[in-house]
Structures are given as structure tokens and as C-alpha cells.
């Protein structure tokens, strides 16, 4: 090490030394797979996508420059964009809080020192690893208005079951219920966070006479707030990525889906690009999506300073 340092120091030239150049080449060689991918499959596509978003482009004929027309249409003239955004936001607004509550509640239950917890943990977690396509097919069957077990149980309880995925009003609630089945991933993250909460803090609070609820509110919750914050951001991004499930559900009930209540943003983008081949318009939709995710993430970030506690920050 000392030798290399002397070597470098011994050449106070303007250019980079032989040693630095060699380490640069070595470093670049190691990261070259990613670097090539960055240029070919990320940076170039970003530029191309931005360009396409100002054109009318159907893949088969060259793109035609149309200026801001795509953005104008998307924001002002396309009621399907408004519908897709409404649906996506509605889903995010209802699902994310419910999912956090359910996942955190499950994690708290599974964190109690009990015999057999590892078995319960496996059971709670298992649904979240079921492939999306398979779980969607299963839930379409469970929610079948006539023969599905959910409506049969409701009927047994004297409640007339709704049409679920077939009904415009119930398609979204049904989809949210179905999504809640797969909270296992978030739950495991909360569980890991709960196990990281220092025992001494809880014991100290207990000695001060704090009950279980107060301990949770004043010790546990602040300690795991960064994880809640993380899960909420992932939830927002996830809501805009919802695709396979709603593609299958709406596919099962005709192309438009039940009253279009399950027309999510990603689904609409897919239809515009790979079904209608409006690549220019779809690119504009993708950039609008990018801006929305950035703005939402920024808002959550900004507001997080007030209620997220980071250990080690004074």
C-alpha cells in the first residue's frame, strides 16, 4: 500500500497517474455489464421515450412530431386517464392504510413470545408468495357471485352477496380485499423492525408505569416509523404498478372491465401502447406517471421529517 502511495505521489503530473488509470480501467471493467445496460436499456430508452412522448408513433411508420399534443390530450381531453388516475388513487388511499394496519397488527401478534409462533408466521406469510396469476384466478372463483364460497357464506348469514368483480360498485372493494390477502411481505418487514426495538426502552417505559398501549404508542411506534414510511412509499409505487391482477380480472369480464372500475393506470398505459400501438401517447402517459410518483414520494419525504424518528439523529 505504501509503495503505491509513493508511486502516485512521485508523479505530480497534470494528467492522471498510471496507477489511477489502471485502477480506473479495472473498476470500469468490473462494472461494465451494468454500464452497457445503463446506456442501452436505461439512458437511451429514457431519451427515446421523452422524444416519443412528443410524437405520434405507431411503430410501423416513423414518429411524427406533434409537440405537446399528447400531454394536452392526456391531461385535459382523455376521460380514461382521469378515470384510471381516480381508480389508482382510490385504491392507494384505501388499500395502503388498511394494509399497514393489518400488516402491523399481524406483526404485533406474531411478535409475542409464544409457542408455535413460527408455524403461525408461515401461515400468515404463505399467501403472499402465491403467484399473482394463480391467486387472481382463485379469488375470481371465491368471489363468483353465484357459486363462490364468499357469497354462499354471506347468504347463510342472511346477507345478499354483491356481484363483486362483476359489479361496478363492488369491483374495487373486492380487489382491495383480495390484495389484503397478500400483506405477508409487509408483515415480515414490520416483524423484523419490531424485533429491532431495544428491549431496554420498553422495560424503562414499563418501570415508569406505562401500559401496553402507551408503550406501543410512545416507544414502539416511533422506533418503527422509518419502516412505516418505507412501506408507504413502496405502497404508492406499487399502486401505480398494479397490472397482472386487474388485467386478468378485467379480461375475464370483457375488455372494458366492470364499469371500468378496475382500469388502473398501468393497465390503461398497456392498452394504449401494446393494444392500440399509440406509442407516442403511451410514452407521454409514462412520463406523467413518473412525475406523479416523484411528487408523491417527495411529499411523503417532506412530511416524514415531522413524524419519522431516526435513531442516531440527536
Amino acid at each position, binding site marked *: 500500500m505504501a509503495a503505491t502511495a509513493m508511486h502516485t505521489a512521485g508523479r505530480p503530473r497534470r494528467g492522471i497517474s498510471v496507477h489511477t488509470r489502471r485502477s480506473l480501467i479495472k473498476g470500469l471493467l468490473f462494472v461494465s455489464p*451494468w454500464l452497457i445496460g445503463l446506456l442501452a436499456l436505461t439512458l437511451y430508452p429514457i431519451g427515446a421515450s421523452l422524444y416519443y412522448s412528443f410524437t405520434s408513433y405507431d411503430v410501423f411508420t416513423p414518429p411524427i412530431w406533434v409537440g405537446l399534443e399528447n400531454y394536452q390530450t392526456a391531461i385535459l381531453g382523455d376521460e380514461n386517464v382521469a378515470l384510471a388516475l381516480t381508480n389508482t388513487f382510490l385504491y392507494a388511499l384505501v388499500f395502503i392504510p388498511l394494509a399497514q394496519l393489518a400488516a402491523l397488527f399481524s406483526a404485533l401478534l406474531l411478535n409475542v413470545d409464544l409457542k408455535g409462533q413460527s408455524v403461525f408466521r408461515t401461515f400468515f406469510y404463505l399467501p403472499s408468495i402465491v403467484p399473482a*396469476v394463480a391467486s387472481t384466478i382463485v379469488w375470481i372463483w371465491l368471489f363468483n357471485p353465484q357459486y363462490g*364460497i364468499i357469497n354462499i357464506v354471506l347468504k347463510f348469514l342472511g346477507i345478499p352477496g354483491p356481484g363483486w368483480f362483476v359489479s361496478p360498485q363492488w369491483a374495487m372493494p373486492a380487489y382491495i380485499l383480495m390484495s389484503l390477502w397478500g400483506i405477508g411481505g409487509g408483515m415480515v418487514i414490520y416483524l423484523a423492525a419490531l424485533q429491532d426495538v431495544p428491549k431496554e426502552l420498553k422495560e424503562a417505559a414499563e418501570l415508569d408505569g406505562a401500559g401496553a398501549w402507551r408503550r406501543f404508542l410512545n416507544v414502539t411506534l416511533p422506533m418503527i416509523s422509518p419502516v412505516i414510511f418505507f412501506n408507504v412509499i413502496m405502497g404508492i409505487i406499487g399502486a401505480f404498478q398494479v397490472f397482472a391482477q386487474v388485467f386478468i380480472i378485467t379480461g375475464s369480464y370483457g375488455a372494458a372491465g366492470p364499469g371500468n372500475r378496475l382500469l388502473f393506470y398501468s393497465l390503461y398505459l398497456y392498452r394504449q401502447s401494446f393494444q392500440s400501438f399509440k406509442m407516442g401517447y403511451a*410514452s407521454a402517459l409514462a412520463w406523467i406517471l413518473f412525475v406523479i410518483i416523484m411528487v408523491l414520494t417527495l411529499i411523503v419525504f417532506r412530511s416524514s421529517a415531522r413524524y419519522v424518528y431516526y435513531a442516531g439523529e440527536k
Partner: protein
Amino acid sequence: MGTVTMHVRGKRMIGKRARRAITLSMLYPLLVALSLLFLFPLFWMVSTSLKTNPEVATMPPTWLPAVPQWANYPGALNYAPLLKFARNTLLICACNVLGVTLSCSLVAYGFSRLKWPGRDALFIMVLATMMIPGQVTMIPVYIIFSKINWVNTFYPLTVPSIFGSAFFIFLLRQFFMTIPFEISEAAIIDGASELGIYSRIILPLAKPALATVALFTFLGNWNDFLGPLIYLSDPEKYTLSIGLRFFQTLTYSEFPMQMAAATMMTLPIIILFFLTQRTFIQGIAMTGLKG
């Protein structure tokens, strides 16, 4: 004074024990009830898959099939070439697992174990690319692949794996950073090359992290829906996730066959989960990845 505190303490201890007994008596039923709720759809999937078509519509429904109809499984395999879809899926998964673990570990090595000018600036680019939603690059990437006639081949679904994935590069880099640098220095003195250190020292030490990357790459590709949907049009080349759509056109009376197909797609993942449970759970906690 002393007796008073002792008295209070004793009381509190008894109270605590009693409270724990009460909590337990409430907690177990709750945990069992929730477990049943979580497991029921899976149970119903398997149970339905073994019923006859008329049995699915009987009222009240039967919990278990009167006579298990194992023939529904060969029936589903006949209805759509699921075995071929499974083979296609496995091929794509294998290429990605190999490509992603190899390239990501090489790149992560460059970003963590080597010092070179511009390294940290480039690494920020790795993190920045994670912020870009896939929808932005999806269309131009499709156009690139269609221009080189790769549409309707497995190449768009496998070849990009050799460029690595930003998230796994990040994950492996964090892991490589925790390996003491003295090991590398000692190896250099012994005359080892960087590739030698990478393959003979770092990779063996990073097995748990590599297993996580391999496992989640496998799962991601097994479950991938959008990629095969965009690129594969020939049913001969379908993967399981898009091949399962063949069963969508079935009516309610054929739910058993649908459920048999869904079971066949789910079972390998559940087996994989039980085989690799530790890697699985640690991986999720480590990465914040959701399933």
C-alpha cells in the same frame, strides 16, 4: 419502606402472570382464526381442484370432494400444454438466475472492493435508475428488441439479465462492504488477481446474499406477467403466467380444472419456500422486497 416496595412488587408480579394467562387465552384463538382466514383460499383452491364439475355447484357446498378427482390434473395438462409452459418458464428463470447473480456480483465487486475515480458518482447512478418506473423505458426497449427481430423469442426476457439489476447490485454491494478488506490485501500480497479474489474469496463468503439474489430473481421471473405478455405471441413459447389465461375462457362449471392449473403453478413456489425458508424470510427483511 423495604417491605412496602417488596409488597408492591409481589403484587405486580402476580398481576403480570395473570395478565399473561389472559393474553394467551385470547391470543391463541385469534392467531388460529387469522391463520384459517389466510389459508382458506389455498385450501379452497386445492379442494375445488379435486371436485367434479357438478359438485362445484351443489348447495350447500362440500368442504372436501366426495371422491377426489385426480384426473382433473391430467385434464388440465391436456387442456393447455402446461408442461411446455413450465419448461419455458424454467428455462427463462434459469438464464436469469445465472445471468443476474454473475453480473450483479461482478458489478457489486467493482463498486465495493475496488477504489477508482468516479466510482461513487457512478454508484449514485445505480441508485438513481431504481427510481425510474419500468413504464418509462418499456416502450423504447420493446422497439429496440422488435428492430433486431427479437420479439416472440426468449431473448428479451433473458439477455438483459447479463446487464444486472440495479437493486441486486445495491444489495450485494452492501454485503461485500461488510467483508474485511484485510482479506483482499493478504490475497494481493499472495499474488492473487482481482478476478481470483472475487471468485475464490468474496463469492464463497457472500453465499447468503447470493442465495437471496438467486431466489428473488427466480421468483420474479416465475411470476413475471408483463414481460412474457409483451414479447411472446406464439403459444408454443408461453410461460405459465400467461399460459394460465387459457383457463380464463372456461365457464364456472370448469372451475375444478382452473383450480388444478392454479395449484400446479403455486405448488413449486410453496415447495421452494419450505426448502429455502431462511433465505426467503431474511431476504425480505433485508431487502424490503414484497414476495
